[in-house]
């Protein structure tokens, strides 16, 4: 529990808690948030956490995450928990989980991969070969993507 709240509770929306310290802005970015959407958002960074030592938190009033957004968060913040808040109460709380297969979220880093050809009806598919450290392999061209590649790509979107 936080000793005192830096920001007030939200009424309806999502609290992404237990983000590894320093990654909140990346989470913010991969959700495609710019601040101009009109949501009330709180980004709290480097607060004390029993589990993680330090952690980040993102609170978004009025937004509920899509499964693909949860998967993206899992890739860069595997310790995160997603709390759904309704009427000031946490109604569901769950940990993110890195799926075994990542479909249509990432772009293969191999520019010569079939999945990077826009005129072909093909989705990008990666198999997760290691969750920690994160390591993925492209189903089509076998190229390996490391955690660094994934963060770089997701943070750039």
């Amino acid at each position: 529990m936080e000793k005192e709240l830096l920001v007030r509770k939200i009424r309806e929306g999502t609290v992404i808690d237990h983000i590894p310290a320093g990654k909140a802005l990346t989470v913010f970015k991969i959700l495609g948030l710019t601040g101009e959407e009109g949501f009330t958002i709180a980004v709290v960074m480097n607060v004390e956490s029993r589990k993680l030592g330090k952690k980040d938190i993102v609170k978004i009033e009025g937004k509920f995450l899509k499964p693909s957004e949860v998967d993206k968060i899992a890739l860069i913040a595997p310790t995160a928990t997603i709390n759904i808040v309704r009427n000031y109460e946490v109604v569901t709380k769950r940990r993110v989980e890195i799926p075994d297969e990542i479909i249509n979220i990432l772009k293969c880093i191999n520019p010569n991969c079939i999945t990077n050809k826009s005129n072909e009806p093909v989705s990008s598919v990666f198999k997760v070969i290691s969750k920690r450290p994160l390591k993925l392999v492209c189903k089509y061209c076998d190229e390996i993507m490391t955690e660094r590649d994934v963060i770089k790509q997701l943070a750039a979107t």
Partner: protein
Amino acid sequence: MGFKGRDVLSILDFNREDLETLFKVADDIKANPFKYSEELKGAVLATAFFEPSTRTRLSFQTAILRLGGSYIDLGEIERSSIAKGENIADTVKMLDSYVDIIVIRHRIEGTAKFAAEIAESPVINAGDGRKHHPTQAMIDLYSIHTFKGGIDGLNVAVMGDLKYGRAATSLILGLTLFKPKALYLISPPELRIRPEVMEYLKQAKVNFIETSKLEDCISELDVLYVTRIQKERFPDPAEYEKVRGSYRITLETLKEAKDDLIILHPLPKVGEIDLKVDKTKHAKYFEQATLGVPVRMALLKLITRG
């Protein structure tokens, strides 16, 4: 697992037992070629080569003809619908409705896998970019098996462009299915094996040694597999000039070699092996190329009839 109906996308789609079955059928085809002359009567194979090829395309075409089947060829890209901008997916759908087996080569990596998802007929990868060339690896492994009586316990070296060369890569991956005593990976530092290949070697616990110098291991070798180092792989032409001589096989290079060393090459070779070496007992690459037809016949028979 059996071969019938399977796609051939990577050498790692197969296990040792599969390859030994393939070798047995290839042995029998070599010994009794006419026994198989009606094996695939009525079957039609498509060769769709979006990149240049001589040996691979012709040996697939020869293989299906020798099995009593026939083939259609996509022909020059400039004359086909590809030139009009048709995508791979639509081209493969059309071929699939015409033929029983599709052989495809494309510069874009993962094309064969994508084609295999679209087509109901088996798809054979005849090379995709830098990645895979599984039937070449089958021929190379079969050559070692034929000339050396087996693959286990041998000191094998793969030399040349190990980063971009798909034949070398597929052979290295194929060797993980066997138990070579040591696998020497000889290349300039900038052309070493790719990370995913390194991953497979470690997983398979292959005893491999990366080196830049053939002279470090030549006296140990039972098999030397040579591939070409392409000038265009080097950003600086001066760098290429510096290294090219170190990866050229001459009579001098072979002075320290074992008497029964065999030299293999996927061909075409363009200067990386001195012509004088062709006449030595070590040179097995021309015989290796002739094995392309029986191995591909065996593969076509197995994936079509089991």
